[in-house]
């Protein structure tokens, strides 16, 4: 009788365990935002649609600890491993300061930085939640020229880590061209890029994305005229009919 009751308890406990398990895997995560890692460049839209899931979730290149790649061996992020994509290369001296952006603050074992199999940086996480902002300065030592830096955030309470790759040109000389395996070369222009990609709107013109609008300015959209209620840089999804908080129909 007692055994029966125990069995019933055990059986009753089984579905309970199923329910306790969080719905979906724990949302994460993090990536290096400065200098712009490959994932950050994807989220900026710098590579258009060639980024796969990293366009939406730069923070989610998650995989088991101990890997040496840019995607966490996560197939949805495999584009991050593709050295042939036109990644922007960051020019740096031997000392490099990096900033992480987190979407969730996992308890952290440590951060590791590797170039060519050599660990060039290590910062303990003290098994605590990361501070804001989390910024590290590492010494790139004897490395020079074009290098790929692996930045790894090892989580304290899971088996996983988050992977970020940053393309560097250390102490000049390496050029910003991709490795010699590629056939395309970039023009070596001396013109400096514009400091901002936002444009000034033509007065009373048609609404456009990525445009800086001052409060009070007017635009047309879909045959109607709207007045800007709040200064902002426009973006897709903030079209005047979809953002009454930003645009008043007049």
């Amino acid at each position: 009788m007692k055994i029966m009751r125990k069995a019933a308890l055990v059986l009753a406990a089984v579905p309970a365990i199923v329910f306790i398990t969080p719905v979906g895997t724990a949302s994460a995560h993090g990536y290096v935002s400065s200098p712009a890692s490959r994932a950050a460049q994807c989220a900026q839209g710098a590579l258009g649609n060639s980024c796969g899931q990293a366009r939406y979730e730069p923070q989610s290149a998650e995989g088991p600890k101990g890997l040496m790649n840019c995607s966490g061996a996560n197939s949805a992020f495999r584009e991050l491993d593709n050295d042939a994509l036109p990644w922007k290369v960051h020019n740096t001296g031997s000392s490099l300061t990096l900033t992480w952006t987190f979407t969730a603050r996992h308890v952290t074992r440590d951060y590791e930085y590797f170039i060519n199999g050599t660990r060039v940086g290590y910062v303990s996480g003290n098994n605590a939640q990361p501070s804001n902002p989390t910024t590290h300065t590492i010494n790139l030592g004897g490395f020079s020229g074009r290098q790929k830096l692996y930045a790894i955030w090892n989580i304290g309470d899971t088996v996983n880590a988050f992977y970020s790759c940053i393309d560097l040109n250390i102490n000049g000389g390496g050029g910003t061209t991709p490795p010699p395996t590629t056939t395309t070369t970039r023009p070596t222009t001396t013109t400096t890029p514009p400091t901002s990609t936002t444009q000034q709107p033509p007065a009373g013109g048609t609404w456009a994305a990525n445009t800086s609008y001052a409060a009070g300015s007017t635009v047309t959209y879909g045959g109607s005229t709207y007045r800007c209620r709040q200064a902002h840089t426009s973006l897709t999804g903030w079209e005047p009919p979809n953002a009454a908080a930003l645009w008043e129909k007049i």
Partner: protein
Amino acid sequence: MKRLVIAVAVLALAGCGGEAVVPEGQQAHGHGASSAAPPVPGASARFNDADVMFVQMMVDHLQLGISLSQVGLAKATSQEAKDLAGAIDVTQREELTMLKSWLKLWDKPEGDGASLHAAHGGQPLLDDKVINEAKEKSGAEFDMNFLNLMTGHQGAGVEMALAEKKDGMNPETTAYADRVVTTRQGQISQMLKIISGS
């Protein structure tokens, strides 16, 4: 025929478990009751557990974003950061009003953030402590920390919206999730360009 309908109903109950319909009379877009077929519930009235979870979590998420925006509005030094804080503030207030009305329609509580996060395995980026610590910084350091926190926070919103697009069924809610993905991506793109100086 009747048996088939019952079988389908039983399967639906046993299988999904989460689907629900707002009772007739409380629907936002209830179709006129016809004598023959049972009334088709208005689109806004059909929802499942994923829709409710997403909307409840977004209510908390939007409120945290608004709190951080307020700090940004008060302390940001660059006009770019200040404008973004202002735009996020007003657009998210608008979204918050809409989502709260949906929960009311569905007769679901707003829930409290802490237990929602605990139930879904999250360790959210923002809480009152983190937002208060942000206030302690000033100048360029404040701007960078603010933009960094907002980038992460909005990124978590994209993750939630992608889950809703996959599992939700309410058309208004999934359309809102689409808009969250698009607008947050745009904001994140703007902020990352400032953060990395590119």
